[in-house]
């Protein structure tokens, strides 16, 4: 029950965050201007979907007999398969039980894809986007985040998952995969070491953690996937997208089995997405970037709820 004083308190809280919300508005405008100026089109995807994306550790929030999307990825790939070569999406996504300083069950995600591109091309786009946003919104190429100055240009350090784990956790997940140990060591040993004075890109994930990325043509133990960290904050996840329908179906089936083994609901395979893959998805790259996290970084805020209007 909200009382009159709670409502007054909410009003005061919203009013006190005017400068943050105005900055947020300018960032959303600048993101759109960046892509619009590069020949991309913005597309809306359904928020309520009949089948959520099948991922081992991402749970969807149910909405009647459907689900709230966890990401617009499958719809965007259907557009790519239909011949749209440069597309982006900016809007809310929802994930069950994700709540913390850096997680909100409802958050704002930017995703963009382009055909005839791989994950390293997408990294160049990401660098250009963040450089342009910093220039326009901060008027500089560095930012201050939790007492640390971070230079956004010129060096973005690229480190492979193997090297990062060997250095900070003492083992190589590519040689000896252990899913539980991977997640725990990533959070407790590797990620804290990525808190540097420049952006760090963790790349070339073990094939077992490929998710929707294609494997490296010259080394099938590795997936063409990267994650961007700035100030230790994980900002974006990118792939050279998997375009092989048979391999994709196999990964979905494995994932559904693993979800069932963990006692999670095993979502059915999204057959609309599968038929788009079968008809032919061009070689393409894509990335999902958390807009709220980017705002936290630009505004030096350590709580995701501070940069969203309502929480």
């Amino acid at each position, binding site marked *: 029950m909200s009382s009159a004083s709670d409502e007054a308190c909410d009003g005061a809280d919203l009013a006190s965050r005017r400068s943050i919300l105005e900055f947020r508005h300018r960032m959303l405008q600048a993101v759109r201007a960046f892509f619009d100026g590069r020949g991309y089109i913005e597309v809306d995807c359904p928020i309520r979907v009949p089948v959520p994306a099948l*991922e*081992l550790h991402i749970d969807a929030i149910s909405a009647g007999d459907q689900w709230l999307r966890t990401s617009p990825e499958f719809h965007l790939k259907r557009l790519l398969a239909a011949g749209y070569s440069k597309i982006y999406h900016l809007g809310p996504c929802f994930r069950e039980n*994700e709540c913390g300083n850096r997680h909100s069950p409802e958050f704002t995600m930017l995703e963009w894809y382009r055909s005839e591109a791989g994950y390293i091309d997408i990294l160049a786009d990401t660098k250009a986007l963040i450089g342009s946003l910093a220039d326009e919104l901060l008027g500089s190429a560095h930012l201050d985040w939790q007492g640390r100055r971070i230079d956004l240009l010129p060096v973005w350090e690229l480190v492979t998952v193997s090297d990062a784990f060997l250095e900070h956790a003492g083992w190589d997940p590519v040689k000896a995969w252990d899913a*539980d140990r991977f*997640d725990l060591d990533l*959070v407790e040993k590797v990620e804290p070491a990525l808190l540097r004075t420049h952006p760090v890109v963790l790349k070339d994930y073990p094939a077992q953690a490929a*998710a929707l990325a294609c494997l490296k043509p010259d080394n099938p133990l590795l997936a063409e996937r990267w*994650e961007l960290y700035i100030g230790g904050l994980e900002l974006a996840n990118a792939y050279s997208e998997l375009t092989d329908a048979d391999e994709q179906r196999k990964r979905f089936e494995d994932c559904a089995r693993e979800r069932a083994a963990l006692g999670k609901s095993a979502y059915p395979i999204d057959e609309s997405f599968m038929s788009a893959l079968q008809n032919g998805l061009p070689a393409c790259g894509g990335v999902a970037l958390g807009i709220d996290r980017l705002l936290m970084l630009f505004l030096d805020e350590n709580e995701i709820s501070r940069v969203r209007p309502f929480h």
Partner: protein
Amino acid sequence: MYSASDLRKGLKIEIEGQPWIITDFTFSKPGKGQSIYNCKMKNMLTGQTQNRSYRSNDKLEKPNLSDRPMVYSYIDGDEYIFMDENYVQASLKSDLLGEDRHFLTEDLEVDILFFNEGPVGITLPNFVFKTIIETEPGAKGDTATNVMKPAKIEGDYEIQVQLFVNEGDTVKIDTRTGEYVERVR
């Protein structure tokens, strides 16, 4: 049983037969990975602290804890004795009571927390009333509200009170902060 997603600050869990309370909590989730719940916790029996991480599929034991209304009776050496309406006694050592022990008065109604059948903690009423047994005399007419001076309450515990408070006065204390609230006479 609790699952890891139930973890939050203040939750009480059982590990190897001991009750622990979560004192701090961080949720992390690496991209595409599983949720990691890092918890700082305090042992409710020994006060020992530790850090533990749980993954989303971990299950945690729920301790058998219950609050029972009792009244404070007397102190016996290092043991504080409480009694319920059927005159059943429970005793708590001073280290389990912590600072709360200074705010006990005879016949004060409290909640005693039991783990299985053993008493492990106390919840005091939010406010208690104590008599000042020692303080510098207050200047007459000095009603400044923001200037404080030290004063001892029964049990020789020192608090800060307003200048006009004298020996023999009764004061109201907020047990959650341990601070003086007002003089009641």
